């Protein structure tokens, strides 16, 4: 599977994107496009955000000079005795948890691509990603760890391995044909998950029809089945 593939899903558009990405390329992306990346990306999640944004520690490298693509990821990786790295699979971790860091993160990192699992809230796209000229690419499945791991040409560097551990460290990865990823939010801040949710919600009440409610309710439970828990 790559940018030129012809598997089913033939109606879906496939794109190769060079990282760092520029505005023009991002502007062309439509919700549901299948994207493959070439270039350098880096991992960053709560550990990295806490150190840089929470504790105010200088980033280990000038982020803007490295890449503008932040991957919400912990690799299945190990460090060999000689100091080299063995990266097996890579998949994303659920992104909604990092919402509170977005504002400061865009200012600090200049990120234009967020790659993760499960997307952010529609509000985050409108108030954070779109105003900062960023789009969100979701991993597929989840997750295609072997396909994404295979696309890593080289581990450029690993920062704060000691401080944050293997899972939370900042892995800088040189990738080729890294995907598949799906365009989840576009340049205007529209969301594919939100659109699909609306379609799914049209049938929710019908699914429960005729089933009597349980004798004992749950304390504080929501009664609106169209709500998301994210």
């Amino acid at each position, binding site marked *: *599977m790559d940018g030129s593939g012809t*598997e*089913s*899903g033939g*109606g*879906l558009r496939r794109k190769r994107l060079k990282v760092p990405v520029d505005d023009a390329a991002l502007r062309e992306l439509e919700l*549901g496009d299948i994207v493959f990346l070439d270039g350098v990306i880096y991992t960053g999640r709560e550990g990295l955000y806490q150190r840089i944004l929470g504790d105010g520690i200088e980033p280990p490298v000038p982020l803007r000079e490295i890449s503008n693509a932040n991957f919400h*990821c*912990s*690799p*299945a*990786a*190990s460090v060999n005795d000689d100091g080299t790295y*063995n990266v*097996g*699979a*890579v*998949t994303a*971790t*659920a992104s909604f948890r990092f919402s509170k860091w977005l504002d400061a993160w865009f200012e600090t990192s200049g990120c234009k691509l967020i790659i993760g699992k*499960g*997307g952010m809230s529609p509000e985050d796209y409108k108030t954070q990603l779109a105003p900062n000229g960023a789009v969100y690419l*979701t991993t*597929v*499945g*989840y*997750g*295609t*760890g*072997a*396909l*994404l*791991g*295979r696309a890593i040409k080289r581990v450029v560097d690993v920062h704060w391995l000691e401080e944050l*551990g*293997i*899972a939370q460290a900042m892995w800088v990865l040189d990738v080729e044909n890294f995907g*598949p990823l*799906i365009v989840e939010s576009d340049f205007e801040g529209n969301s594919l*998950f939100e659109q*699909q*949710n609306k*379609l*799914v919600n*049209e*049938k*929710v009440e019908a*699914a*429960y029809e005729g*089933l*009597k*409610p*349980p*004798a*004992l309710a*749950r304390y504080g439970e929501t009664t609106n*089945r169209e709500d*998301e*828990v*994210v």
Partner: protein
Amino acid sequence: MAMIKADAIEEAAYELTAKAAIEIPQDYRDGLRGMLKGEEAELSRFVLEAMLENYEAAEQDRRAMCADTGVPRFFVKAGNEAQIEGGFVELETRLRRALARATHDVPLRPNRVHPLSRKDNNNNVGIGAPEIDYTFEPGGNWVDITTVHKGGLFGSDYRMLFPGDGIDGIKRFFLDVMYEFGRRGLACQPAIVGVGLGGSKDIAMTLGKQAACLRTVGDRNPDQQVAALEDELKEMGNSIGMGPMGYVGSSMVVDCHIEVGCCHTGGMPISIHSFCLSSRRAVARLHGDGRIEYRTDPNWFTPYSRRESVEWTEAEQSLAVV
């Protein structure tokens, strides 16, 4: 009688850890192919095809299929005559040692951390980790070791229902879990959905987890009433209009497995668990004569484990699988 060697236990557990992480069980792969045949929505089809291709890439490269290698754990079933070199304390030591080594060598992601300090030993071993569950089977000098790598965050829930809630209550709770964790694909569906019904509260949770992780796609509970409900819940989950990643589709439940245990007369505790698109399990049987046989069906639930009677009679024994 010959002893099951401690070295063999460590070797098998190390091999199983790699196999589980890399090789998707054939029953699940076939189940997913079946879902693809019935799936009409374009995005959902794309996701299923990408996953099937991912399994091939994992096997070709001998790399983990998913970087969230879950919280690896072991299920041990001992034949009643099993003689283990060094006893069960040695067995546990060997399982922990094998997992620590395999975590580095495969590699797995070192997922296990202390819940408060968040300290990571970087080897998936720590307090209570890996969990080791035990069961026993009449006869035989053998031990079955099953490893399961299941993701840990989404797709499971527990609720105390009451007898009057009946099948309606079960169905509603099932739908609740499908919708709650299906949106955005948090449950990494389509999944093998396990339902634990009855027992004490903790056993309701355990039965559901084991139903999801330790039975194969296509397997049915021998109790016909339970089996009919398995079919019904599977069908219901696949007809709510949702598919992989919460996109519009029809692929939510690769299979549904229900395990029951007798419960308090006033209640009907229920748990639901989703074993994900990387449904990782691998099994080895170690014999006293040194043979090791690998397979993917844990054969955890048997006529003996599901017995109702006080005694284990000859008539029942004739049905037992050993």
